[in-house]
């Protein structure tokens, strides 16, 4: 029984952490090498694709998606998709996909060039080759070097507030249960042995 309990809570926290890790913004410093557009037919991985462009037809099964092709400082490739999240989930309210693609194309910097142009990309999501899913780029800006330090202020504040909120509700719920529900159940089950 105790394994079931641990398994349940382990799974619960794994899902919560995975959800936050997928949804909250993260930063990478990369070199953009190309920007392109390709048709996508979401299938099993449909959960990991956002919406059609805001204003477009949301019911089409297939559509063109912008991609940004990059290399990280350690020469590992990383590909981002560039999609509107619109009014849907996750709540980034991103509508400027085409503008972002123009900015990305403007900062292209190949390996053969003298001084590489490094770019910080804010994104959410995961890259997974087996599912063919890509993180969604939210915004980008030029930076001096790949060692630039970006402090995730939003995540620090958001996680602090979230923890405080959950803790506050949890404490009150526990008190409520001890004062109101447990005595009622005790009364009800009185004499049951």
């Amino acid at each position, binding site marked *: 029984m105790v394994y079931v309990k641990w398994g349940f809570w382990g799974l619960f926290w794994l899902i919560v952490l995975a959800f936050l890790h997928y949804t909250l913004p993260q930063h990478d410093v990369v070199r953009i090498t190309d920007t392109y557009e390709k048709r996508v037919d979401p299938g099993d991985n449909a959960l990991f694709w956002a*919406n059609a462009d*805001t*204003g477009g037809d*949301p019911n089409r099964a297939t559509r063109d998606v912008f991609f940004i092709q990059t290399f990280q400082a350690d020469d590992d490739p990383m590909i981002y998709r560039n999609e509107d999240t*619109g*009014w*849907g989930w996750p*709540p*980034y*309210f*991103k*509508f*400027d996909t085409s*503008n972002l693609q123009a900015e990305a194309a403007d900062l292209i910097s190949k390996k053969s060039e003298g001084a590489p142009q490094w770019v910080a990309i804010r994104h959410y999501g995961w890259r997974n080759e087996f599912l063919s899913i890509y993180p969604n780029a*939210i*915004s980008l800006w030029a930076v001096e070097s790949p060692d630039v330090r970006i402090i995730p202020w939003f995540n620090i504040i958001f996680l602090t507030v979230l923890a405080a909120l959950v803790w506050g509700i949890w404490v*009150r719920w526990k008190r409520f249960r001890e004062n109101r529900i447990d005595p009622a159940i005790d009364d009800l089950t009185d004499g049951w042995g």
Partner: protein
Amino acid sequence: MLQLLRLVIFGFLFLTAVYVVVSLWSRSVRKRKLRREWEEIGRPGDRDAYVRAGMEDYDHSLRRKALLLVYIVPVLAVLTIIYVVNFM
């Protein structure tokens, strides 16, 4: 457009649920405080009347109106995110 409508409708329903819960909770806290206050100042007159008068004051207080922030803060947050993500 349908997506915006969906966000507004479900957002409103969710925030209304939050508003109701927070409002009930705030009233119960206020009542508890009034009862304790009544005991501390030497039990003047009827306790229920004392609590009722106190709750009437609460109904007109700024503290109660501040609960409307449940609706205002998320809307401001959404507007801020839209500005930061798309126009900054």
